[in-house]
């Protein structure tokens, strides 16, 4: 067992998150998938922090959580607004603007 496995795990989770953004239609689920990507990145930070033997990675991960929290607030506010206007949380419905 070595630390690199965490990196693989992180990469996989990131991939799953990224694909989730592409395949899911519910705005909230999409947003959760983005959160998953951020979490995956955090796992990499923590793992690299361990490999590098300093705490900078952990600090970044901490910042990421804070920033992500802010993002969630803003993002969910936007999603709710859209939902209230359209009565739908499907991001496919929001395609007025195109071409």
């Amino acid at each position, binding site marked *: 067992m070595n630390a690199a496995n965490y990196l693989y795990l992180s990469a996989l989770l990131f991939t799953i998150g*990224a694909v989730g953004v592409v395949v899911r239609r519910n705005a909230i689920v999409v947003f959760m998938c983005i959160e998953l*990507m951020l979490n995956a990145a955090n796992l990499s930070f923590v793992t690299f922090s361990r490999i590098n033997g300093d705490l900078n990675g952990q600090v970044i991960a901490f910042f990421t959580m804070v920033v992500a929290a802010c*993002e969630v607030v*803003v993002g969910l506010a936007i999603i709710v607004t859209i939902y209230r206007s359209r009565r739908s949380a499907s991001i496919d419905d929001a395609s007025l*603007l195109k071409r």
Partner: protein
Amino acid sequence: MTFTAPVLNYTLLSPILILLGGALIGVLVEAFVSKALRSIVQLSLTVGTLVLSLAQVWRIHNETSMSAAMGSVIIDGPAILLQASILIISIISIFLFADTDHFTALAAALPGSEEERHSLETGNQVTEVYPLTLFAISGMMLFPIASDLITLFVALEMLSLPLYLMAGLSRRRRLASQEAALKYFLLGAFSSAFFLFGMAYLYGYSASITYAGIRESVVGGSGNDVLLLIGIAFLSIGLLFKVGAVPFHAWSPDVYQGAPTPITGFMAAATKVAAFGAMLRIYYTVFANAQWSWTPLLSVIAIITMLFGSLVAIAQRDVKRMLAYSSIAHAGFLLAGVIALNKAGLEASIFYLFAYGVATVGAFAVVTLVRDSSGEVTDLNRWKGLGKRSPWVAATFAGFLLAFAGIPLTSGFIGKFSIFSAAYESGAKGVVFAGVLSSAIAAFFYIRVIVLMFFTDATQDGTSVQLPSALTRATLVISIAITIALGVYPAPLLNVISNLSTFIR
């Protein structure tokens, strides 16, 4: 373990601090000042803050420092130039915000509801945009001067979040506006996840999160480059997303179209400065020694971006979308400046950013003026005969378009010339050639708009040009004056840029 008390150089940070202070006051104004007064108070507060900040930038324009904020930011010539550019562009775009007709009165009200109608009848609009803008501007100011990844990331989010929000605040066509906000937000968050992931690999590669530390590893790293390259790639995705480079551009036409026009102008101009500022610093200092790895990729992206933007713009029928695609093409041109990786490239990029930014704000300012009874008219077919109805507005718009097209005696030409020559100097001949080619393609649609405005007879459909308010007029006058002045006699600005533009590292 000992704790070293942090030392912050408040003088050097003051431009940002002033902005943040102004934003906070703005938030308080929201809470305590009566609705009737809020608009004017916020506007004066914001303009005052920006001017003060600009003055502060001017005061420190000869300073350089790497330790202004414990190594988190670098103050040097380019930083000053970029910050000043952002502030100037912000000031002229803030004037546009002030017209009452752009922002919804009540963002929470459902589109089409009774509540919305009532709120609109009051003639108010959301004044929170002012503090939000100030927050965004402080993020933009921080973005190009950040010198560690944390600050970079925080600044990225700081400039993005308010923009996500403001994109959704349009007074008219609110569904589209909210859609723009959603798209911008989701894709922005998506790309910042990549950005963050890239940061992780850079940290893993170099065991450092400061620019200096990463640069050191790039110069003399011990492992292989895989982690570095992945890091560069993902970090670039985040940055390229912000500047709207193909294939990370998709948000920009939709968002430009949906967002309230003043926001679009501000976003298109100022965000580009900030994002390219950061990009220039990162590529010129941190990744400079890994040039072999990223220049080819960036060149390909630049070429695709230029051509794509120009080609698709031809087929557009909506002026805001057309300007969006044009801005994509310009992102491609600016990437040429990044690829150049020489002093000339840096100077050219800064000049271009400023010139382009000012012209962009001006162009969107004109868009705000063309209206019918239900708000702005962005359908190009209804711009027919504009030159007849209001020659000055049309002529001004034509001026901006000519600047975008890079016609001599406008700032766009000097910018294009300098950026292409810098790229050529560095050997990126393919990029220059693609740039020239796409300029030719681009000329086509700029001219088409001029033809529509001047040479096509108007249709009687109620489209008219609103008499610009004093503030909008100020925006227009300042931006066209700068656009032409920089085309006719750019020497002073070029000298300033030349003297200042050296990255310290």
